[in-house]
């Protein structure tokens, strides 16, 4: 079972565009805060990261994403919707691997809730990453 919150490979601009179109269907939200996590071409001992291979515990990711949404909605009652999408599999340097979109009536709620959701994702989502270097060696992070 592939959960909605996991996407195979990078999060492409068309995924983002379709979320933007979804946003425009509602007229009770005034502020949307989006976080995009991108694979950086970091250097590690003179080797450059060319991609990350993400693995995820799909069943538990689904459970944890729901828990995170519940936490946010309980703390920020003005939040109207939350979208969380994480990549699994190979994502190349420069590509997007995480998207969080929080929509609220007013900007402060959207911004604070999005920031908190990103922290919870980092802490609670069972996702692992293997950095792949330009010489094809790899390193678990």
């Amino acid at each position, binding site marked *: 079972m592939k959960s909605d919150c996991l996407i195979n490979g990078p999060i492409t601009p068309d995924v983002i565009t379709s979320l933007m179109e979804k946003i425009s269907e509602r007229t009770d939200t005034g502020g949307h805060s989006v976080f995009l996590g991108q694979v950086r071409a970091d250097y590690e001992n003179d080797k450059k990261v060319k991609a990350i291979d993400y693995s995820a515990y799909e069943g538990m990711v689904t459970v944890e994403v729901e828990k995170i949404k519940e936490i946010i909605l309980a703390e920020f009652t003005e939040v109207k919707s939350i979208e969380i999408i994480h990549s699994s599999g190979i994502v190349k340097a420069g590509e997007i691997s995480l998207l969080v979109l929080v929509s609220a009536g007013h900007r402060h709620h959207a911004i604070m809730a999005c920031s908190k959701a990103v922290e919870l*994702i980092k802490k609670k989502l069972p*996702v692992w990453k293997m950095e792949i270097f330009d010489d094809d060696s790899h390193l678990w992070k």
Partner: protein
Amino acid sequence: MEVKVLFFGVLAEVTGTRLKNYYEVKTIGDLKLRIYDDFPEVIHYNFRISLNNEIINNDPNLNNGDEIALMPPFAGG
């Protein structure tokens, strides 16, 4: 009885597998000993254990069909 054990992240590489079934294990403590028998190198890694998608900090009994995961520190985002 049979339980399913999942290995994630570096532990999938270290054990050479993502999934192994274990039979007739009563508790998480029993299971850990069996896993260390099969994959002695696992003991050198830092990981948490989940039982049916919930992280556990105690030593619960196991039931037929349980899903256990050995999870190194999360690194999403």
